């Protein structure tokens, strides 16, 4: 088991992944120093997928189920966000087309 603190781990992974430390940090700190270093190296090189795989593989029952629930909640939020963005895009399209039509009609003198 490594002797790193959460703050030290957070500093090593950078701001972009600090939320990962909040979520998985307690578990990560129980890993071997080598495994933690591999995790940090993955993130530093932009390979967050491999880092995430390490984190998930190390999850026990409760953490695994909590992660599955978190992923479902995230996708539900994505669906909602997507629907809102889509509605806004359609509204903007209609407004723009309406404005264009007005200008075109004015340009041809109607």
């Amino acid at each position, binding site marked *: 088991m490594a002797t790193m603190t959460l703050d030290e781990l957070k500093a090593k992974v950078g701001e972009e992944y600090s939320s990962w430390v909040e979520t998985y940090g307690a578990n990560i700190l129980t890993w071997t120093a080598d495994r933690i270093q591999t995790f940090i190296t993955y993130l530093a090189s932009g390979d967050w997928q491999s880092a995430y*795989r390490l984190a*998930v593989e190390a999850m026990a*029952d409760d953490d*695994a189920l909590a992660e599955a629930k978190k*992923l479902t909640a995230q996708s539900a939020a994505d669906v*909602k966000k*997507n629907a809102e963005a889509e509605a806004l895009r359609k509204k903007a399209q209609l407004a723009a087309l309406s404005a264009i039509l007005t*200008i075109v009609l004015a*340009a041809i003198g109607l």
Partner: protein
Amino acid sequence: MNTNATKMLCVLMLLAMSLFLPAGCNVMVKSDMATKIDTWAVNASVVKAKIDSLAEAEVKTELAINATYLTVYSDAATNNLFTYFFGDAQVYLKSDYYRHVVQRSIAATSFAAKAEAGTIGAATAKGILAEELLWFSDMKKMKDGDE
């Protein structure tokens, strides 16, 4: 109509056309992935109805199937960006949607392996399976524009 008016009309027409270029992940899930998501959702609803009665081996099988589906979907989400998101590939690769799809795929593969190896309990495996089925349902909502 004078030349300036014609130029203005051309610019406005280009602007109008640009409004209809693919935007957002809705385009992706309404593409060729739609059929697959439909199939998954149908299968998911069937399985969800009997999830409590599934034997341990069946749960393992379903988790493995889901992991395969999710990997296909995740790969497609990555590859499709070249078709639909080439203009904003970097933005897409950093988007929450993309990241969450890939995370779901990685987690599903890992959880299926854990279930197969018996390193997670039967109740946990069923709980994870239920969450994955909910995910399929969410993807179907996104595809259908129900939400």
